[in-house]
């Protein structure tokens, strides 16, 4: 027991360096997913029928296929086939980001659709172009409404990032497994990894709750 704790303690700095990798994965993927998710959502709400169908297909595909299959497909398959040479880390950010884009687009889409249509009408009545109205009027409101959904998506992406261990990204889980298989202290190390993820979830959702309060529109209740 004591011995296990000593080993665990010794491994902590190594695990914490993995936290940096995990956090970069999540920040990268969420950022990529945010930008593409907004574009997809706008396209799906305001686009031509063909744009909508195409985006619908994208969302269906990336929400229906497991992460690990997509990792293998992109990292070992498509990227190699296309001659794109990416590190496992970068490829993982892209794949996690593409999936998150699909999920985030549905959060934003729901938020956009929940806004009263009068908002767009009023913007047009002032002479705003549609793209200006979307940027200045629709998105600022829709994104505010999306924060709770986003917080949920964060905790999913965070946990999913542990799967990138399968393609060799040295994030928290990979490091825990590495130390475990050398020291034969599997249980404490996996547990420590789990607790680290739990803490990251807690910190992230806490931060997003603060953000939600900060961007709340005074007096506005839904």
């Amino acid at each position, binding site marked *: 027991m004591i011995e296990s704790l000593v080993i665990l303690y010794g491994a902590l700095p190594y695990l914490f360096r993995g936290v940096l990798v995990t956090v970069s994965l999540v920040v990268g993927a969420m950022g990529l997913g945010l930008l593409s998710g907004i574009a997809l959502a706008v396209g799906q709400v305001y686009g031509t029928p063909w744009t909508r169908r195409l985006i619908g297909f994208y969302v269906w595909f990336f929400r229906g296929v497991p992460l690990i299959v997509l990792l293998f497909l992109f990292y070992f398959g498509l990227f190699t086939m296309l001659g794109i040479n990416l590190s496992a880390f970068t490829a993982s950010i892209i794949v996690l980001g593409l999936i998150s884009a699909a999920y985030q687009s549905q959060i934003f889409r729901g938020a956009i659709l929940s806004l*009263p249509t*009068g*908002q767009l*009408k*009023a*913007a*047009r*009545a*002032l*002479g*705003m*172009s549609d793209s*200006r109205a979307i940027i*200045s*009027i629709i998105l*600022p*409101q829709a994104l*505010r409404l999306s924060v709770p959904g986003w917080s949920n998506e964060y905790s999913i992406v965070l946990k999913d990032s542990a799967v990138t261990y399968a393609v060799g990204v040295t994030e928290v889980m990979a490091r825990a497994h590495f130390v475990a298989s050398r020291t034969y202290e599997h249980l404490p190390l996996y547990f420590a990894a789990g607790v680290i993820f739990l803490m990251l979830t807690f910190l992230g959702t806490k931060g997003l709750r603060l953000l939600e309060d900060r961007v709340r*529109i*005074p*007096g*506005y*209740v839904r």
Partner: protein
Amino acid sequence: MSKPPVLRAENITKRYGKKVVLNNASLSICERELKILIGPSGSGKSTFLQCINFLVTPDRGRVWLDGREILRTHKRDLNAYRQKVGMIFQDFNLFDHLTALANVEIGLTRVRKMGKEEACEKAMQELDKVGLRDHIAKYPAQLSGGQKQRVSIARALAMDPEVMLLDEPTSALDPELITEVLAVIKDLRANGMTMIMSTHQLNFASEVADEIIFLEDGIIVEVGPPDKILYEPECERTIQFCSKMRELYGNSR
């Protein structure tokens, strides 16, 4: 009527599916005039007004401003035209994420590309005109209905429109708040703003309108000066509608 009209809409027709919501409606208005659209709910007043600035795309019909026809397929012209035609909505449609001041500023900075300071000054002036100097920092959700509608009037006025379209501006208001908004509209009228307004306030209409247009089932049934339409209408349906409205809202004379 020798002056040319500022705004002219001709033969506007709008269908939703099979239902003809607006049938060949025409209207023209000269500078400084106030024309009032009356008619039962669902008669097509909102549709008519929104077709005039193409917020609803008419199936047929043409619109001219200052003698120039508006081609709604030409996006840039359309946006320029909408700047010159202010619109007030029944349910205000203030931008919920912006303060009263920012609601008025945004058209100036984002559409007219005015500098931030100049826009702020102008927005303050407009809000002052509608009596909201003390509320500029509030968000829509913190304002009363009457205040919201006055912000929306300031927002439209800030664009220096040639014509204003007002779609039942007082219908969503509690009775005690109606007067404050009507007072602002009367003020506009006194300052010579050209306006087309739909309303159920027949007393107000009889006081200030140059002409009243009675719309029913998407058809313009009767047009004329207030005294004629409200007190000696020719059509049976106009008579019925006016007497029903009087029952509901009382008579002024």
